[in-house]
């Protein structure tokens, strides 16, 4: 490949675009009191919030995989009237303000919600102010990322492998497990990681639907927000921890897993 100069008309906006993301991060890094980092990090509330964040975001990702992969399969493989509308509805949380998502969850699964009222009166189950509520809020906001990524993977895979396996007598389930899943593996992995990253940073839907209490519903983003009001420096440090965790994962992902073929 002949190496050609990159046109300035591309480089300039690209550089501004990159700087737009990097400068705020530098701001956080510069303004963080690194001397107090250890104190802030080893505070029991921090560890509690970090632990809860990891548990909740991983659970949300697991739920998203279990429910989202079949949904993506349906979108990719089954033609039915209203498919476009259904797909739009299930990916709406990507554009919905998370706080509105939280209110919507309350209206559905809250103590007086459409389903929630019945669940509360019949089984005594309520979700707000519980860790399960946190997982629900995170799943609601993050699962669309998994659905879309996996659907794209299913659509772009070569279906002849599946057909061959079927022709050789494998059951549909066996084909799905032994052929389809391995083929969409990279998309599934990428989708799960995007979903997890989104769940980890979730704030609006969580505080609205699940509330905020240390150890039960106070995830890292909530702790950061509330610390911002009392101890700004500590909140910067916590933000950086979140950033670092996400950055390690995102850098660790190879481009192809995220579907941006490294041509």
């Amino acid at each position, binding site marked *: 490949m002949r190496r050609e100069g990159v046109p300035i008309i591309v480089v300039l906006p690209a550089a501004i675009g990159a700087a737009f993301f990097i400068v705020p991060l530098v701001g956080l890094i510069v303004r963080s009191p690194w001397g107090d980092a250890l104190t802030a990090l080893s505070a029991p509330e921090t560890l509690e919030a970090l632990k809860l964040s990891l548990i909740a975001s991983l659970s949300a990702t697991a739920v998203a995989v279990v429910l989202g992969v079949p949904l993506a399969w349906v979108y990719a493989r089954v033609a039915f009237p209203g498919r476009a509308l259904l797909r739009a509805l299930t990916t709406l949380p990507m554009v919905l303000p998370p706080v509105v998502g939280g209110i919507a969850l*309350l*209206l559905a699964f*809250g*103590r*007086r919600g459409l389903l929630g009222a019945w669940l509360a009166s019949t089984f005594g189950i309520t979700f*707000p*102010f519980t860790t399960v509520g946190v997982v629900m809020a995170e799943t609601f906001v993050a699962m669309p990322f998994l659905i879309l990524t996996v659907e794209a993977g299913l659509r772009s895979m070569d279906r002849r492998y599946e057909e061959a396996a079927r022709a050789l007598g494998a059951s549909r389930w066996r084909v799905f497990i032994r052929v389809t899943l391995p083929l969409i593996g990279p998309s599934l992995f990428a989708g799960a990681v995007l979903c997890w990253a989104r769940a980890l940073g979730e704030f609006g839907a969580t*505080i*609205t639907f699940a*509330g*905020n*209490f*240390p150890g039960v*519903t*106070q995830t890292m983003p909530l702790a950061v*927000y*509330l*610390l*911002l*009001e*009392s101890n*700004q420096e500590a909140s910067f440090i916590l933000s950086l921890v979140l950033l670092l965790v996400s950055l390690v994962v995102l850098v660790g992902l190879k481009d192809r897993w995220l579907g941006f073929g490294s041509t």
Partner: protein
Amino acid sequence: MRNPLVLIVVAVVLAACGSTSSSATPLSGNVSVFAAASLTAAFNALGTDFQGANSGVTMKFNFAGTPTLVTQIEQGAPADVFASADSANKNKLKGDGFTAGTPKVFARNKLEIVVAPGNPNGITGLADLAKPGVIYITEAPTVPAGKYALQALKLAGVTVTPKSLEADVKSVVSKIELGEADAGIVYKTDVTAAGSKVSGVPIPDADNVVATYPIVAVKATTNAAAADAFIAYVLSALGQAKLQSFGFLSAS
């Protein structure tokens, strides 16, 4: 009426301070008021009135938990006026050199227990918040209301673990309205503002905490004349009457 008079006085004072030439020019431009969340309804009404009296002025409000406002102003958000729900945050902003002039207390507020309409759980006082089965929520102790709520519970000798520490008073009220929680401690004015959607249970004065609300101009204001005029309006008899109609106690 009182209001135009105050404006003239302010304008004269400003003219006397004499930066540039023009005497009592009508006020104009935007006034950005950063106000505590508990002031939402009252300040929106005050803003409408002030705008009515000063057609050249556009009032803009930013309501949030007081510490959030302090952070925003210190990070350079374009604020002209700061109305705080406590003196601690006002002192912080002042101490950091972001205020202009002397802060003045313009209102006071008491705490009240907020419950669902008709008080279905039969809550009669702070002690009932600890009753089994009652879902009690409050504000995080980082916001003034949460700090006051803790003080009130301590005064009453009640120990209760909230289900949630919400980011501001409005979130507490809306969770009561939605029926997710049974009781919370908020300002009396929040109960008044929510109207028939909630009920209030008074807290006796012995256990109650009185919040004071100071107002001050922000040093970086680009519209000092209008900012000072709005502050003067809030402190005027007319402004005070308006605030009291929303359940606030008088400044003194």
